Structures are given as structure tokens and as C-alpha cells.
């Protein structure tokens, strides 16, 4: 898995987020401020612009640059969260041979960044409700002998379940928390975009 593989992930993800921008914003309208789709789209369009004009020697450089680009272009809650994810994810891959295990470590490092910035706990109705089961599923798959692709497919499926499980929750973090009980019955936009990130990874990596 080289630079090209990761580039195709980022490009696939950018076009997926573009196609889902209105949907993500719609979800954010119900329990947030109607911008999650435009935020993600703006950020990943900027990542694509960077990919278009830069040649990267190694995946870690490309992923770190993607993270920095998200931090610089997105704003809101998702900018620092996804930005830090990619920064830490890329940093963790520096110098490492890419194996199912090392990729799992890198994912964990990325999510560690999200935990540090946002301090989400499981059940807060945030993107972490998709990331946490995804990490667990990935590790379990790898422990069961799965390759990167298989582990990512398992992670994406777990993320989707985590995403669906956000629906009944009363939010405790992010804007949805301001709604109190009224946040229940709506799917978290960030958990939805996280699922798109992992589904795209499952399609393109490994």
C-alpha cells in the first residue's frame, strides 16, 4: 500500500462527501446548525486541491498534509476533530511498514486525537460513537486473521451500527446537546460522516 492507494482513498472520500453534503447538512439541520455537509465538502475539496498540485513521497506526508488542510479549511467542530485524526493517523504511519496491525495502531492514534480534542465519551451522540466500535471491530478482525481490506470492511460495518445507535440517544456533546431531550430520534451527522470515511477506506485501501 503506497501513496497512490492512500490518494485514491482521499479522492474517493472527497467525492463521497461531496455527494452526501446535502444529506449531512440535512442531518445537522435537525439537531445542529445546518453546516456539517458544507464543512466536510469544503475541507475535502481543499484536500483534493492539495493532491492536485503536490506530489507526495510517502503516505504519512500526504495524510499529515490532509489533516493540516482540514484544520485550516473546515473550522467548526469537525475541522479540528477530523484534522487531528488525519494528522495523528499520518504521524503514526511515519516510517512504519503498513500492515493490518500498524494501520490499526494508526487508526487508534487518529481517534486518540479526537478524544483529546473533543473529550467525547461513548453514548454522547458524537462521531466517537461510530469510531469506537469501528476500532474494536478492526482489531477483532485483525486478531481473527483478516487483511486490511477485511478489517476495514468490519470497521465500516461497526461504524454504521454505531451511527444507527446514535438515533435514540440524548446528546451530551456538540451542538445537539443544547436540544436536550429533543435531540433524541435524530442520527448524529458526525457519526454519519465517520461511517462514510470508513466505508470509503474499505473501498479503496488494502
Amino acid at each position, binding site marked *: 500500500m503506497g501513496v497512490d492507494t492512500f490518494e485514491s482513498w482521499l479522492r474517493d472520500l472527497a467525492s463521497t462527501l461531496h455527494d452526501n453534503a446535502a444529506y449531512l447538512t440535512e442531518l445537522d439541520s435537525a439537531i445542529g446548525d445546518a453546516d456539517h455537509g458544507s464543512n466536510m465538502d469544503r475541507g475535502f475539496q481543499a484536500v483534493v486541491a492539495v493532491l492536485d498540485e503536490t506530489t507526495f513521497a510517502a503516505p504519512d506526508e500526504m495524510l499529515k498534509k490532509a489533516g493540516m488542510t482540514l484544520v485550516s479549511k473546515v*473550522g*467548526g467542530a469537525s475541522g479540528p476533530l477530523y484534522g487531528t485524526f488525519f494528522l495523528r493517523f499520518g504521524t503514526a504511519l511515519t516510517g512504519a511498514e503498513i500492515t493490518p496491525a500498524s494501520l490499526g495502531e494508526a487508526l487508534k492514534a487518529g481517534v486518540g486525537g479526537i478524544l483529546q480534542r473533543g473529550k467525547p465519551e461513548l453514548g454522547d451522540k458524537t462521531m466517537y460513537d461510530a469510531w469506537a466500535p469501528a476500532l474494536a471491530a478492526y482489531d477483532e478482525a485483525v486478531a481473527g486473521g483478516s487483511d486490511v481490506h477485511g478489517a476495514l470492511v468490519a470497521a465500516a460495518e461497526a461504524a454504521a451500527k454505531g451511527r444507527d445507535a446514535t438515533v435514540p440517544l440524548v446528546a451530551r456533546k456538540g451542538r445537539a446537546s443544547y436540544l436536550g431531550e429533543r435531540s433524541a430520534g435524530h442520527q448524529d451527522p458526525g457519526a454519519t460522516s465517520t461511517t462514510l470515511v470508513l466505508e470509503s477506506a474499505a473501498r479503496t485501501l488494502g
Partner: protein
Amino acid sequence: MKKLINDPADVVSEALRGLVAAHPEQVRVDLENRIVYRKDAPRAGKVGLISGGGSGHEPMHGGFVGLGMLDAACAGEVFTSPVPDQMMAATKEVDAGAGVLHIVKNYTGDVMNFEMAAEMAAAEAGTEVQSVVTNDDVAVQDSLYTAGRRGVGVTVLLEKLVGAAAEEGRPLQEIADLARRVNDNGRSMGMALTSCTVPAAGKPTFELAENEMEVGIGIHGEPGRQRLPMAPAKEIAALLVDPVVSDLPYRQGDSVIAFVNGMGGTPLIELYLMYNEVRQLLDSAGITVARSLVGNYITSLEMAGCSVTLLKVDDDLVRLWDAPVNTPGLRWGA
């Protein structure tokens, strides 16, 4: 969606162009970074005051840049906090050696982005940065386990008061302490008659029937805590004032700045009418109104509705309130 705009993607930068064209004596603008600077920033010996946040709340924050208020305001996309690069650039630009205060409204995105900027500015330029986070919205339960209360109307009053204190040359720690004291003594509550439309989203964030209102809203076009049947101004005033008064609580004999704020689409005639109601409630609670502010100052695009903010003040704060201010959005004594 009907708005006086061109491409939704250009709303913020085109509005910033208009702001600086209309107020060339007060502000200059870094269009690339979307930062509104006080014309003559940095001011030697003065603590630099920076705020920022999503756009769509005009005149806040860009309209509060100038003498006696902010040195810089970072404008994010509509309802999206600005990015760390902006706050870092602004921090470096307005630091005149006395340090910089970041005035941040309590939203996850704003807090995280300002935090990253402060870390980066300290690491890169060695600038001393303090942050104050406003969280005055009593519609939201304050708790360690949640995102906490939102920062709303108090932010406007704080920028004015702390701006006046900074103008006097007070040191950063004193300015930061003052800012926290102001935040601690202020409470707000808002309501909406209509939703608003984020330009990039293209349709209203929520729908309200002709006989409904949302109570306990913030400033991002979000639905509120409760949907209630529409009511006369007198009842709406009580719905806003009562939870504010009982939260701090404000007591008989307290002196306050009373602030009735329009959400953007409510005309002044209604805001004055609301102020009349609010005033009667405060009078009968024995709370003295030392100063007042009525108008559209911290808005939510074209949302119709209003918020009420009370800030407990002493003589020192009243003096800072009366001090000259010369910004596009708030001006007196200069």
C-alpha cells in the same frame, strides 16, 4: 431561499469587503485570512483583544472592532467557527508585547479552534495568550459532562467592557480576570418566531407553524429547548426574564445592564416593545437598570425573535460601559 447574495460560497468575503468599504476610518480587513482589524492595531502597550466565530451574527464580531472594543475579529463561514490559522495570524498581528486575550463563545468548534491557535501562537511567536470562554445561555443546563452552556448576548457586553479596560492599559491578567467576572455575572435567554436559512444549505434549518415559537434557542438557527404556542409579548418577556433572573440569581437591589437583542429579522419597533415589557418585569423585581442596550447586535441571520441578557454591574463596570467606543456596530463618546 431569497437573500441579497451572489454565490453562497462568497457571502462572507463579499460582506467583509462591504464592511471595510463602509467603515474605512475604523477598520481594515485581511481578506485572505478573513480578519477584521482595528485600523490602527497593534496599539503599543495595549493588550490585544481578539474574538471571532462563525459569520451570520452581524454586527458581531467584525462590527465590534475599533477603539474601545476589539483589535481583531476572525470571521468563519456562516455558523462555522473560524480556523486556527486565522486566530493565529490575528494574534501575531495585534500583539504589541502586552499579550492577547481570546474571547471565545462556548461552542465545541470555537473552543477547539481557538485552543489550537493559542497553542500554535505560543509555540511559534511566544505570544502570551489568555482565553475567556463566554457561556451565559440559561436555556442550556451547565454540566461537566456536556458541552455546557452556549455563549450568547454577554459576549457583546463583555467585548465592550473589556475593550474599555484594555484601552486604559491594564495588564493581560487583569483584563482576563475582568472578562471572566463579566461572564460570571451575565445570563441570557432567547426565542425565535422563525427559523433562518444558512446560504449554503439553501433552506430553513427548521420549520415553525404560524402559531408556534421556539424558546431557548441559540444564535445558529438551531431549534430551541421547547416549542410553545405563540404568545403575547408580555408572556414572552416573562418566559425569557424569569429563567435569567432566577439563574444567577439577580436579586432585589442589584444593578444591571439590560440588553434586549434582536435575532436579525425582528424590527426595532418590536424590540422596543419587548424592552418595555422586560423593563416592567425588572422594575417589579426591584432590579435597577443602570444601562440598557436594545437592537440587533448578536444575530442569527434573518431569524425573527429576540433574546434578553442581564449583566450585574458595579460602578467600575458602568464607568467602563460609558467609556468611548468607536466601532461600526457600537459607537458613543467618540
